[in-house]
């Protein structure tokens, strides 16, 4: 991996910041400066100071702890949603590329269907079925990720299905599933990772959107989106309360996108050369 990083500053910076923030989130599982459920109304709206580096929120909770655990929830929601997208979308895409015909027609219709249901509508429907919460946001955003990964996987696989080594594998008696697992998946892996970082950043924004209309993470848990919503009405009185989570979201999303772009450049040349192949001369 190291040569990969050296050549691409954007990847280094992007991945670095994202990992750092994700780490801060993970730490919050074990330790946060103050427990986030601890409400001390008397100490609310404190500016940044020795005890509370980032001050306190409208319920007196420590902002730094909230940001840490909020970052964790945002990453968790976006990560699992991307996981759903990959887990279901990629096999669909590969099946579409390998079997073609009505399988492909079905996969395309299913992805049209999932696109047609904007994530927010799905979130609203599920929220009323199961009740709002992280799991609801994960599921709603996850559904929206499925067609994205299906398209990427199908696109990538289509260019590879025509390659001779796939024909050679069929000649060696490999069935379609073995070919998908042994030959197609490893070769579209980098495409999936790059798309993964992008969907991760979109997932964090989507979670913020869902929290804004009250369907994402629910108190006492917190997420960056929820913090932003709670602070929105106090914008003119305590702007600090919405600037901190807002900036956190912007920094994470930019970092993830930079990591995604850097990864695409780092992996792309190798991907492009072997993909096209070229005749001597």
């Amino acid at each position, binding site marked *: 991996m190291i040569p990969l990083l050296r050549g691409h500053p954007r990847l280094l910076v992007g991945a670095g910041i994202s990992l750092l923030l994700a780490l801060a989130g993970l730490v919050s599982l074990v330790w946060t400066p103050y427990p986030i459920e601890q409400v001390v109304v008397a100490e609310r709206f404190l500016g940044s100071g020795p005890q509370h580096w980032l001050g306190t929120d409208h319920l007196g909770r420590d902002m730094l702890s909230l940001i840490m655990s909020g970052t964790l929830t945002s990453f968790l929601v976006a990560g699992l949603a991307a996981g759903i997208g990959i887990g279901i979308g990629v096999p669909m895409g590969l099946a579409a590329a390998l079997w073609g015909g009505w399988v492909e027609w079905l996969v395309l219709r299913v992805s049209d269907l999932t*696109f*047609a249901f904007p994530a*927010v509508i799905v979130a609203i*429907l599920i929220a009323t079925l199961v009740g709002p919460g992280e799991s609801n946001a994960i599921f709603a955003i996850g559904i929206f990720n499925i067609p994205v990964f299906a398209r990427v996987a199908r696109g990538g696989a289509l260019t590879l299905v025509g390659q001779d080594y796939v024909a050679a594998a069929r000649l060696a008696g490999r069935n379609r599933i073995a070919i998908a697992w042994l030959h197609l998946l490893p070769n579209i892996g980098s495409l999936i990772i790059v798309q993964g970082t992008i969907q991760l950043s979109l997932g964090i924004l989507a979670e*913020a959107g869902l929290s804004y209309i009250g369907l994402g993470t629910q108190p006492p848990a917190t997420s960056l989106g929820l913090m932003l919503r709670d602070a929105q009405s106090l914008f003119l009185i305590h702007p600090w309360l919405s600037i901190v989570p807002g900036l956190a979201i912007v920094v994470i999303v930019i970092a993830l996108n930079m990591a995604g772009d850097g990864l695409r450049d780092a992996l792309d040349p190798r991907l492009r050369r072997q993909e096209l192949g070229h005749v001597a001369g």
Partner: protein
Amino acid sequence: MTLYIARRFLGFLATLLIAAAIIFVLLDLLPGDPARFILGINASDASVAALRTQMGLDAPALSRFLSWVWGVARGDFGLSSTQRAPVSELIWERMAVTLPLTLFAMVVSMLVGLPMGIIAAMRRGKAADTTLMVMAQTGVAVPNFWFGMLLTLIFAVGLRWLPTGGFTPWDEDAGAALRAMVLPGMALALPQAAILARVMRTALVDVAEQDFIRTARAKGLTRDQALWRHGVRNALLPVLTILGLQFAFLIAGTIIVENVFYLPGLGRLIFTAISERDLVLVRGATLVLVVVVSATMLLVDLGYALVDPRLRRESGR
């Protein structure tokens, strides 16, 4: 070509039918009884039951689904239980806000995003490229309800150029209605413009390496002329697919922006209708939304075939 259209249209209809079934089943499972919601805390169980039968909520599910679908085919979405008005009328009222808003946002995002992408690609690696792409990166990263708030504070509260929100119907005062579109439209357009700029740039950079660009330069065109005359049109193909997806993002985004600018849009209609358990209204509105998004994607696919002659003759996938 007709084969291509026929296959895609068939797919479109199939998607709608399945979508209708999913919407119906999902909503039927919703907990919470619409009648209880209307009559509130102290109403007696008897009057709640009376209202339920009045609204026909006790008939078997399948017959309700079939009658609903048959009604929708005839344009009759049924009567909204909470608002006693035909659902189609309610939806049309709200569509008069959501559709123009989404189109306004699409146009703005194209006018801003595409040129940004083209210039960045033309000046690849130079200062203009990096600055534009940094702007695009931040544009994507800012949550649109936060950006909406900022826009309101500056242009509505501060400078008083535009209203903070609300909507006067088109027939009453088209000027005011248009002004009510500007800020929400901008808030919606920003992230989409940023995405468009990035996609356009990548597409144009890829196209610039194609052989036919080198042929164009060999004909006597400079690098920029070759890119402009031959590159841009070819780069529009991948951009076109993103436009189809963006419409789905935009429709979803409007629900959030409608809250920030208190617009009577389709999204909020669905949102309030669900919390009031107005199943008939939710079903109709969600289906309309699904139809609009699918129709756009169908149009984009057909547009794709129009732009790319290679798809025209064979039966495309």
